[in-house]
């Protein structure tokens, strides 16, 4: 079974790439919140729950959505599609927000709507809800992007026949620094005839993932 990357998105700084094309770029971005909202608006995704999400979920949600705009997982059984994500700081961005609410005993206001996002895998839940994906999930942590690890993990899912397609990637936000990549991995046999114009499917391996991460 040869696996390939049939669609990918890349978020870095104030740019968004989808399948080698620059789809978003804005000169004067103030901060992450401004950036991610601008991308959301440009893509005209009508999903009010988006505004309730924390930074990492917004980033991962949009990154997955752009991938699935150009390739679909709808032909697969919901429990045969997996989502494997990774990052460096886990949910630290939201952890600090929750910590602010409990720092001072005289103004103690922990909130369930913040606390629920203090787990990195919530972004996987958000992606699954939007796209009706019900298969394998895992969130892995490494100091820097580890293409080998991601590749090995996802390959095991295919080898064990746990998935027929899998979204995988890196979703990192800390303050205003964001860095994300999401790729859809499918067996070559399933690739459709009409390739995405101008984009050649990449073989699924660590080299391809590293290559995508280098596209800024």
């Amino acid at each position, binding site marked *: 079974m040869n696996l390939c990357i049939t669609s990918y998105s890349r978020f870095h700084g104030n740019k968004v790439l989808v399948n080698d094309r620059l789809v978003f770029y804005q000169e004067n971005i103030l901060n992450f919140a401004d950036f991610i909202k601008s991308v959301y608006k440009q893509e005209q995704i009508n999903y009010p729950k988006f505004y309730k999400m924390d930074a990492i979920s917004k980033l991962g949600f949009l990154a997955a959505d752009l991938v699935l705009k150009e390739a679909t997982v709808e032909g697969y059984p919901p429990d045969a599609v997996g989502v494997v994500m990774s990052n460096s700081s*886990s949910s630290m961005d939201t952890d600090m927000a929750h910590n602010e609410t409990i720092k001072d005993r005289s103004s103690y206001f922990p909130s369930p709507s913040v606390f629920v996002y203090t787990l990195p*895998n919530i972004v996987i839940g958000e992606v699954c809800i939007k796209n009706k994906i019900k298969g394998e999930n895992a969130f892995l942590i490494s100091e820097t992007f580890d293409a080998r690890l991601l590749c090995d993990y996802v390959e095991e899912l295919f080898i064990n026949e746990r998935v027929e397609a899998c979204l995988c990637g890196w979703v990192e936000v800390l303050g205003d620094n964001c860095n994300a990549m999401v790729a859809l991995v499918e067996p070559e046999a399933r690739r459709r005839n009409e390739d995405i114009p101008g984009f050649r499917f990449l073989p699924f391996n660590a080299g391809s993932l590293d290559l995508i991460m280098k596209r800024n």
Partner: protein
Amino acid sequence: MGRIKDHMKKSVYILNDNIITSLGFTTAENTAAIRQNMSGIHTISDPVLYPVPLPLSQVDTTVLDSEFGMLLQLYKKNVPAGPYTRLEKMFILSIHATLDGYAEMAANPKTLLVISTTKGNINLLEGRYKNQFNHKRVYLWEFGRIIQQFFGFRHPPLIVSNACISGLVAIMAASRFIQSGLYDHAVVAGGDIASEFVISGFQSFQALSPAPCKPFDLHRTGLSLGEGCGSMILSVSPGNATKSSVRITGAATTNDANHISGPSRTGAELSQAINLSMNQAALTPGDIDYISAHGTATPYNDEMESKAIDLSRLTHVPVNSFKGYWGHTLGAAGIIESVAAITSMKDNFLYRSAGFDTPGVPVPLNVITSHHHTAVNTCLKTASGFGGCNAAMIYQKD
């Protein structure tokens, strides 16, 4: 993908294990306490930890520090003098105990360290630790590096942080990597501490029970938090196990795709994870001898689990939850509960589900009401968590 050819032939054995909780610092201490119907959940009044008293299952700090002090003496020449955080002490003690008799495994290039935790050193966000530890220490990769370097593991650890199913995801990741030949052995360790960060969050969800938790009971009112650490060695070889060896024969995760903080209303997705793992192990519902459930004692979790167990046609199977003994230990749960379940298999002895008196889930389950001897050859372990995740795992005894 040339690895696919021989993966079906390989079995993954569990060679050794350890549990550190409020009930003890070894697997044997923990199971002995459980046999005596002891619970580690007690009302704690510690204003530094949390403003009001609440039931909690805590690891004994005095014993932890003294055991760790002795261990540090043993390793003195080769490891940094410290300081070490509360969670690091638990992980190091647990892994050290698990490696007893397998010490050479740490430095073996074919050994992988797998870590499961939801929050790691999250207490370091509290101001009082600022001068004691480098700010990097709160990141899970730095936590993992400390553990890796202490024992001299060759590879950076695989770190899983996937809410309450982290422990089972860690075990299945290790097991799959061994089956496909990437590694021959894995040390899998999982843990979390009871921190103000986590307690305040669960409290804001109104998920905490004012009394020790009562999984599957009619009068259950929420979960009790606990802290702890567990570890196990997985290997391609059955090793020198004196009792019959236990293998991992099926594993799967699924997602509800329904809600980020509430379980599925139907249990269909947990049931699917159970069915997938039974299929992989080539077992049918009639083959399962025992279920070690997640059983957090929140109204919705236990309700969902009962429906899932019913959908998988397993309501006849004896089931328990260990949460009544040591609370919900988050990143440790999947591992320590698996280790305890494996002792049931080795000893052919099922433990009472603590806190359960009156049936209280929509589909009646065969909840274990008293400790008893019975043949336990196959065990299903389940877990579910925030983010809509579910996991199921099959253990089989040779």
